């Protein structure tokens, strides 16, 4: 492990040169009264630029990333992030824009927002999008707040939201933040929404049903139209969690399936990098009945000029200052321009082909709870390994790291025991998939011949398995200047 940045440097060393005030302070008449001013200096380390660069470059090398490793993390769509998107989105004309500049000064930015909205409407069948949400969960919150506003405007008494037991944790968490009670329904033996369970639980007080399709098992909800009809008959709206949209581009869309509100994770389907935990972008789209509730402003066009339209008196308001993670929008926009309509369909076809290829080749070795053609991802179970050799999904995940592969999502969805959720994405080649299959076969063999090897894994990483219980009990959430290893002064 590398020393902390706070343990490096030397007192008095200078970093990058920073600009001084335009006029020396003594020449300035007015100033701030003493009572407001800090009395002491910060305990920041004194570092040269080289100290800083070497420290963080070395830290970066401790990471697995798409550009260095196969990263089949289920539900996260870790596809390649094209470099042209990074380069073009960092042009001064985008980075140096202030959100409160006059409309005449920002026509290029407004054009992108406007054009990207049209593209996403074409892809999803929705009528309008807001780009304000910063991530998928933020989009869910925004969508559910709109559903709440819709019901309030109609004086519908609605108290609860239905989610399947296979749903992402953000779904119930987002609905709960809107004041709704959560009703979780069991999936059927095929891993799909159980229609009879839905009928049993839905009633006139149901505000919405939240689904992702394909669901988190990577299976398409074939009865989606019936689900939509049942929901709508009770006056409930259908929310589409767009985390798994990468399976369906150009093949079907949420509007055709009967969804009313949705979000898209631009950092999944539209290839913008995840940044080690953000910034993402979670634009939220609606059918025309809900447009008036979207967060403000939207971008519209009048007299050949784009402008921010705030004229939505029933809008839920705002979920973020300004207009969203604009640079992420620019990257997604460039991606769609480079791919085009036909390319988008090709993306989904190849994402699904890659996932099925893995599924077919691995099902001899690991249990496949739902053995049918999957969409963009597939979920295995290590239950057999657990029973026979006490090898868990986590052990397999950790062993994969030794082979230079980022583990799949584990222990999710919750309805599969010892779940291993694998999403290869369309950008990976057959060679990479074949290598992954070979590695998984080796791990399968090791689980029988040398289970200890898996239990002790990973072996080749900067740190071994970490004590998470200690982390949560003896909270150490920051470096502290008083601690004895403070040696920079």
């Amino acid at each position: 492990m590398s020393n902390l940045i706070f343990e490096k440097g030397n007192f008095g060393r200078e970093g990058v040169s920073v600009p001084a005030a335009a006029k020396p302070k003594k020449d300035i008449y007015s100033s701030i009264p003493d009572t407001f001013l800090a009395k002491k200096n910060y305990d920041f380390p004194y570092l040269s630029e080289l100290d800083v660069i070497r420290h963080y470059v070395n830290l970066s090398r401790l990471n697995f990333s798409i550009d260095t490793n196969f990263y089949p993390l289920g539900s996260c769509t870790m596809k390649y992030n094209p470099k042209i998107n990074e380069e073009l989105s960092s042009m001064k004309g985008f980075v140096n824009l202030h959100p409160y500049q006059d409309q005449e000064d920002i026509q290029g930015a407004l054009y992108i927002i406007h054009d990207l909205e049209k593209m996403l409407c074409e892809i999803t069948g929705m009528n309008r999008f807001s780009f304000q949400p910063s991530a998928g969960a933020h989009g869910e919150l925004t969508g559910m707040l709109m559903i709440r506003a819709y019901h309030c405007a109609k004086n519908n008494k609605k108290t609860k939201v239905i989610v399947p037991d296979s749903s992402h944790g953000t779904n119930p968490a987002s609905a709960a933040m809107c004041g709704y009670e959560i009703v979780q329904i069991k999936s059927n033996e095929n891993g799909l929404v159980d229609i009879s369970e839905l009928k049993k639980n839905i009633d006139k007080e149901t505000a919405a049903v939240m689904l992702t399709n394909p669901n988190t098992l990577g299976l398409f909800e074939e009865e989606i139209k019936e689900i939509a009809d049942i929901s709508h008959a009770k006056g409930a709206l259908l929310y589409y969690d767009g985390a798994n949209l990468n399976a369906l581009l150009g093949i079907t869309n949420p509007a055709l399936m009967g969804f009313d509100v949705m979000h898209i994770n631009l950092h999944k389907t539209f290839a913008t990098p995840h940044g080690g935990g953000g910034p993402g972008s979670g634009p939220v789209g609606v059918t025309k009945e809900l447009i008036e509730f979207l967060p403000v402003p939207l971008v519209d066009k009048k007299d050949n000029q784009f402008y921010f339209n705030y004229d939505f008196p029933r809008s839920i308001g705002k979920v973020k200052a300004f207009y969203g993670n604009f640079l992420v929008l620019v990257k997604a926009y460039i991606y769609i321009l480079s791919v085009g309509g036909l390319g988008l369909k090709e993306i989904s076809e190849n994402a699904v082909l890659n996932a099925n290829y893995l599924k077919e080749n691995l099902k001899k070795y690991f249990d496949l709870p739902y053995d049918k053609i999957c969409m963009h991802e597939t979920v295995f179970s290590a239950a057999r390994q657990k029973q026979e050799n006490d090898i868990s999904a986590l052990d397999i995940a950790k062993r994969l790291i030794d082979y230079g592969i980022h583990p799949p999502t584990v222990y999710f969805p919750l309805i599969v025991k010892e779940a291993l959720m694998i999403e290869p994405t369309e950008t990976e080649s057959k060679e990479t998939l074949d290598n992954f299959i070979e590695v998984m076969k080796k791990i399968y063999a090791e689980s029988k011949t040398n289970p200890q090897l898996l239990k002790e894994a990973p072996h080749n990483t900067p740190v071994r398995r970490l004590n998470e219980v200690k982390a949560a009990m003896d909270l150490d959430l920051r470096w502290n200047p008083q601690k004895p290893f403070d040696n920079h002064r």
Partner: protein
Amino acid sequence: MAYISNTEKQKKEMLAVLGLSTVDSLFASIPASIRLKKPLNIKGSLSEPELIRELEQIASKNNSIDKINSFLGAGCYEHFVPSAVRYITSRTEFYTAYTPYQPEASQGTLQAIYEYQTYICLLTGMDITCASLYDGASSCAEAVLMAHRVNGRNKIFIASNLHPEYKRVIYTYSCGFDLDIKEIPCNAEFLLNLDFISRNLDEHTSSILIQNPNFFGGLEEVEKITQIAHQKGALVINSVYPMSLGILKTPGEMDVDIVVGDGQSLGNGMNFGGPSFGFLACKKEFARKMPGRIVGRTVDKDNKEGFVLTLQAREQHIRREKATSNICSNQSLNALAACVYFASVGPIGFKKISQACCDNAHYLYEKLSSIKDLVFPLRGIFFNEFLIKLPMDAKELLAELEKHKIIGGLNVTKFFPEINHAILVSCTELKTQAQIEDYSDKMSKIFRKEKINTKI
């Protein structure tokens, strides 16, 4: 170009393994009635040179701040971003990684976040912080909800001089909760009315949220407000402009309970308002009530130090509807930028930049205060931003300045219809003497002319 690696031949081989002849048969589970009947009507697929031409052409329709002399602030500022920051955040090992769920494969991101957390704690004088939130506005909303979780009370007081967009986000976020939100009025200097606070806070008050420096640039009496609030058992939430903390007292020193803010000024571009990041720091007793991801230091099985995501029992993927927040992805790369920013400028550089912002604004103030027609309600007590009341319509003045390639500030009436004829002006360390003087000269000329006109 769809960035697909497999060749046609490979696709055929893979389909053969599946016992299928066409890709389309993979989608058999999707009923025909909901299949798209025609291809997506989306232009593309542009080659790389075409993309460059297209985007350069679009960008050229933006009149970016580097081409103008701008005094706009109001929550988003034109600060210096060291090359080292851009270089590190462009490392693909950082930006093409996911949230660090597998610590052994993510120590780079995890340690960097731990260091970020330390910098934010040192900056604010608070005990702990999370790994970042979306932005300053949503951090305010999360803080209000967090205070409500901590004490179960439901009356909230928010400053009327809080950033108007932040206010709106708080109202939007809280509509599903049983909260009673009231605004604290201001006095003639646009500072919070302390009498009102004394009279209205009571034992049902969950929190009081103030912004310092406030939206109009003024400095609030945070210590007094904190004392009043604590007497009633209410928590104090302070929204800060991190750059100001280079020279101003930290909220920690003033016994604030929760500090929030937007990290744009710390190594992030203006980016047309996003991405930046939000931060939330607090006293350590609230650790288990915090929203968002948190990185902790621990040891591995060989007793070697390492970092993990911790206190995950608060989070949505474990607690689902009982989580402290629904947040999952945050703004990790922007938080990394802040961490590298602090490391790069160091303690001396950070103070120097903060002082330069303040001095430049005060220099501008001094130049403008010789113009008799302008009124300065803050009376010179501000960090880098101040309100000017005008004898004319703000829109007209700004349009006049725009002719000289100057963005003279924000038209305040846009957000506060009750405040007529006022602009909000800010300076950062990037303003040069020439730019500041250009602004004050043009203002002097405009008002001299204005005066002549009104006399006639």
